[in-house]
């Protein structure tokens, strides 16, 4: 096939700029073009086809329309998990942390992780025995409301949790937050702040 003026060096796999011994090319598209050169430059029966790194990064390949890409592959299936990082703030801590909710099997698992993150005890206790614990974990749900952690099934929680906050019990006073174990259910729609 004709490749006017271009030597076979064009078929060399390179991810960087042309090297010293290569013909000088003005072609800034070389990286993208490497693949087409590969597929173009073989004789009839040749099996010169090679796997290249650039090939797998070809723009727009495989040809799946962008709407479909955005909406089916990253959509979390109800029963499957993918990364679910949410911010966690703790009253008194100077900066926030992030935790991947999908990595945890349930509330106690999460509580342990949070205790490790903030190097404190008591979060797990707060889920079991809210009345006596120092901390009150709350979360912001999809509607923007602040809810007490632990009321709903775990799967529902991780679907709707947008961020977490570990509030000090002293901050929570006056919001009418009632622990789960007491007579009334906590009024979980109170806005924490």
């Amino acid at each position, binding site marked *: 096939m004709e490749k006017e003026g271009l030597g076979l060096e064009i078929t060399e796999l390179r991810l960087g700029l042309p090297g010293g011994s290569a013909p000088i090319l003005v072609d800034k598209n070389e990286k993208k073009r490497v693949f087409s050169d590969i597929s173009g430059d073989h004789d009839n029966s040749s099996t010169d*086809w090679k796997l290249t790194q650039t090939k797998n990064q070809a723009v727009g390949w495989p040809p799946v329309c962008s709407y479909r890409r955005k909406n089916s592959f990253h959509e979390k299936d109800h029963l499957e998990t993918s990364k679910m990082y949410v911010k966690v703030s703790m009253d008194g801590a100077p900066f926030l942390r992030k935790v991947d909710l999908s990595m945890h099997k349930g509330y106690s698992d999460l509580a342990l992780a949070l205790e490790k993150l903030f190097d404190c005890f008591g979060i797990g206790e707060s889920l079991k025995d809210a009345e006596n614990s120092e901390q009150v974990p709350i979360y912001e749900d999809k509607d923007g409301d602040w809810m007490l952690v632990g009321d709903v099934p775990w799967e529902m929680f991780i679907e709707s949790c947008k961020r977490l906050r570990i509030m000090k019990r002293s901050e929570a006073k006056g919001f009418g937050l009632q622990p789960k174990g007491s007579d009334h259910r906590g009024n979980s729609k109170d806005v924490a702040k």
Partner: protein
Amino acid sequence: MMNYFPDEVLEHVFDFVTSHRDRNAVSLVCKLWYRVERFSRQRVFIGNCYAISPERLIARFPGVKALTLKGKPHFADFNLVPQDWGGYVQPWIEALARSRIGLEELRLKRMVVSDESLDVLSRSFTNFKSLVLVSCEGFTTDGLAAIAANCWFLRELDLQENEIEEKKNDWLGCFPDSCTSLVSLNFACLKEVNLAALERLVARNPNLKSLKLNGAVTLEALQRILMRAPQLVDLGTGSFVLDRDPNDSETYKKLRATILQCRSIRNLSGFLKVTPRCLPAIYPICLNLTYLNLSYAAGIHGSELIKLIRLCGKLQRLWILDCIEDKGLEVVASTCKDLQELRVFPSDPFGAGHTAVTETGLVAISSGCPKLNSLLYLCQQMTNAALIAVAKNCPNFIRFRLCIRDPAKPDPVTMQPLDEGFGAIVQSSKRLRRLSLSGLLTDRVLLYIGKYAEQLEMLSIAFAGESDKGMLYVLNGCKKLRKLEIRDSPFGDMALLRDVGKYETMRSLWMSSCDVTLGGCKTLAKKMPRLNVEIINENDQIKFAHEDSQKVEKMYLYRTLVWPRDDAPEFVWTLEKLLFTPGVLLEDQWSSLTN
């Protein structure tokens, strides 16, 4: 003889001529027919919005009621066309609004639509009935609110796979209480909706036949909606999720009962989120389904999916994810004997593809479903033997699009190119109109296509071919070719310039990452005044007017009566036209240009 009939008789006869092509042909017979046809034409299809201007449309077809417009080239779907390339509907709507056109239907594909356009549209045509937007962008739910509020006789609002910015407004609530004419409503591409407004809307629209919901519509809401609309023929569910055991759920029981009342559902889609244990509720529908689209239902796979498929004995069209695997396709093949169309999409396009489908699944389908005429198949690998078997089993393909995940992958058994396999397909399917190639391919396959694919109208080539000869085989052989799109293939100026007249018989040609040069494009543009040759010059790759030998990364050319377009962004270059003389072009160019 026909010339002695009064115009009304001719018009009445032409009423029976409905396809665009036939009407275009009618208009070319003689001046009289041209005139009668022109005044009686109600439906106009414009495949490239830059081929003609709205003013000329209005001048020629003052009675137009239904308009279809397409904007960006097909490869825009795959992010090969930069933002702001063009395809704006605003000038069309403005021109139509200024005129006395009684527009009733507008269908747009790959166009940029603004809220302002939708607002003007909604206010300018009192009988406006149908808006269909496919793969469009640029508007928000404010625009939808205008449509809902102002189009009092709206029958259809169909939003397919658009990028819509969602504002906090309640656009659905803008349908007035007096709106009772809806037949079709599809808002699946939105994320939110006002459920209460939706239920009221459905309740007061007894003619609703097609309803496609989004993920915000819960199972509970679905049940209430179906109670109000048992007459539905076409249903797209939203979120099909239950957070407790279905056996303990009143909602689920109600849903099952309600679905039994919906005896007309023939098309089913959605399941954007799914609790598989709830699927038995839809089993009664499966028996009568003719179209099932589970291509967004990543939550349905494995045995649940198979159970569902086994019930769909009357299926004619199936859109599915590749998690169905070859085994699942074998079930389709043994169950869906009337299958005509199959589309298999990747559930994970960038992943290792463990659950992908292969040639085995396709052969099974072809063997069990001989009526198959339309295929889109994204797969892990393909062999010549398989394609040859498919060609033999299914000689009726109209559309055949095969995409092998690894570009330029050979037959894994023989390590040969797939020329013979595709060659068999084009040779056996004499009515083939659309073809997409993939895998390792030489010029040979293009020779076969040029020789055998006599009805081919659209061809997509990627990472294929060896030389200019390949492209020439296609250009010379495929007489009915309308759209040719090529990427990453070694075709250059020689092929591009050999038969420049060919491009006036086609709608468009796209070439990206090929070997055409700036000089080649300039030469073509100079020779062909009725072509618009656009060079999409991202990242400032080409310094204009220097180095004609520079390769052009992306070229898009199309025939047009109104070159050059005045809305091209900076990175799109349309080249100097030396010969263009406006006003000289004849009306009979229209027919060929708007095909």
